[in-house]
């Protein structure tokens, strides 16, 4: 729970950010820069207290697990980019990071993808005629949407043209539905702020 002074500060900064909706102004600019400083600092603090301190103080200095020096030094190599002559060395940690990402993508992504493919094998016959129709429609929309993404098959092919058109409409319907279905959560975030301004703030300050 916020103290009254905190509530005052929080209210002022909330209004300050909302003022951007009118136009860009010095108050917003100030808050923007305050946030830049605080957030960058917060990353540094969390990195140090969350992981850095444990690795340096406990693993390396206390437990003498000296192998941990390798990734520490490896990470530090990134700073060579500030010295033009040896800047190429910075590519070593970069290539390690990228390799790690590729490895994870290769190791973890094929299975969920196969899961999606297997699930697309649909038995059309449903419990009711309505379900059957929906199953068939799902199949048509799915295959046509995939066809929409074919980059090499020419659209002049009439079958391809029909499929890609249906696919394009299905994608548009999906994006429309995506828009309509998500307004609610956008509104919910502001609902949270309005709740703070109109209820939490007066209850905290004018108790």
């Amino acid at each position, binding site marked *: 729970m916020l103290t009254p002074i905190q509530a005052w500060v929080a209210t002022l900064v909330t209004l300050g*950010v909302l003022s*951007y909706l009118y136009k*860009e102004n010095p108050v*917003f*600019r100030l*808050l*923007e820069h305050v*946030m*830049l400083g*605080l*957030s*960058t600092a*917060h*990353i540094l603090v969390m990195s140090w207290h969350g992981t850095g301190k444990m690795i340096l103080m406990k693993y390396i200095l206390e437990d003498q697990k000296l192998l941990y020096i390798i990734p520490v030094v490896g990470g530090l190599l*990134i700073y060579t*980019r500030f010295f033009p002559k040896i800047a190429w060395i*910075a*590519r070593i940690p*970069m290539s390690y*990071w*990228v390799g*790690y*990402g*590729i490895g*994870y*993508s*290769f190791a973890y992504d*094929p*299975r969920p*993808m*196969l899961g999606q*493919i*297997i699930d*697309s*094998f*649909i*038995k*059309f*016959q449903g419990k009711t005629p309505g379900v059957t129709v929906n199953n068939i429609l799902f*199949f048509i929309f*799915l*295959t046509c949407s*995939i*066809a929409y*993404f*074919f*980059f*090499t*098959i*020419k*659209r002049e092919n009439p079958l391809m043209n029909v499929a890609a058109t249906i696919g394009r409409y299905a*994608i548009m319907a*999906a*994006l*429309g539905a*995506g*828009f309509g279905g*998500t307004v609610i959560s*956008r509104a919910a975030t502001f609902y949270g702020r309005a709740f703070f301004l109109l209820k939490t703030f007066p209850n905290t300050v004018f108790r």
Partner: protein
Amino acid sequence: MLFQLAAAAAPKTFWVKGQMVPFIFLMVVLAFVYFFISRAKAGMPVPPIRKINGLEAIDEAVGRATEMGRPVHTTSGLGYVSTPSTFAFWAILAHVAKLCAKYDTRLINTNNDYQVLTVNEEIIKQSYLEAGRPDAFNADDVRYLSGWQFTYTAACLGIFQREKIAANIMIGHFMAEAMLLAEGAHNAGAVQIAGTLSTFQLPWFITACDYTLIGEEIFAAGAYVSREPVLVGSVIGQDMVRILVFVLIFVGTILQNVQAKNVLADFLRR
């Protein structure tokens, strides 16, 4: 020691359960892509790629910014250095940076991740070098704006208005900030080209941006703009995989409807 471990594990399967078929599948995908990359590189005939809406718009947008004498902004959003959609951004960034170098247009790149920042700076620097304008590269325009989503967004909104950007190119991994950036840049008067894999954010991009690359188009974009054989070959390889997936779904669905037990599904599940 290692041998002992291996021996102990021998009676079990070689693959972690349920990983064999995914591995085979991955290998097939990679083989297709590799095959067509090699073909394209060797200059052998490959099928042409269809036009992707929105990509010529990148050149137009940079051209417009040049005429107006205002900067171009690019970002890969919240992706990490290990996120594949960030890889897609890099191919496009190289192209945009070269265009900007050629036309002498200011390029602003903002970042939410310091690891991505290092790579982006490298790419932009290299592109300016290749365009013969290493002097025009300004390191101050490759900016880190904290690793927090909405701090990053606020800083971007401020930069859009103050620097009066004329073009905004957003390709990569985006989350809630997608709409804030898109509408913010629109209010600053920018032409926008956006693309992402995220099906949550595509609706907002479609609404607020002038051109939107949907899903995998971001991976084809690099190939389309650069026309480099490797990328073109890769896109064709991807398309062959897509045809494979299409066929798999077709065959699987037929089997599902005529067989009591779907052998294909059972195999893929292994």
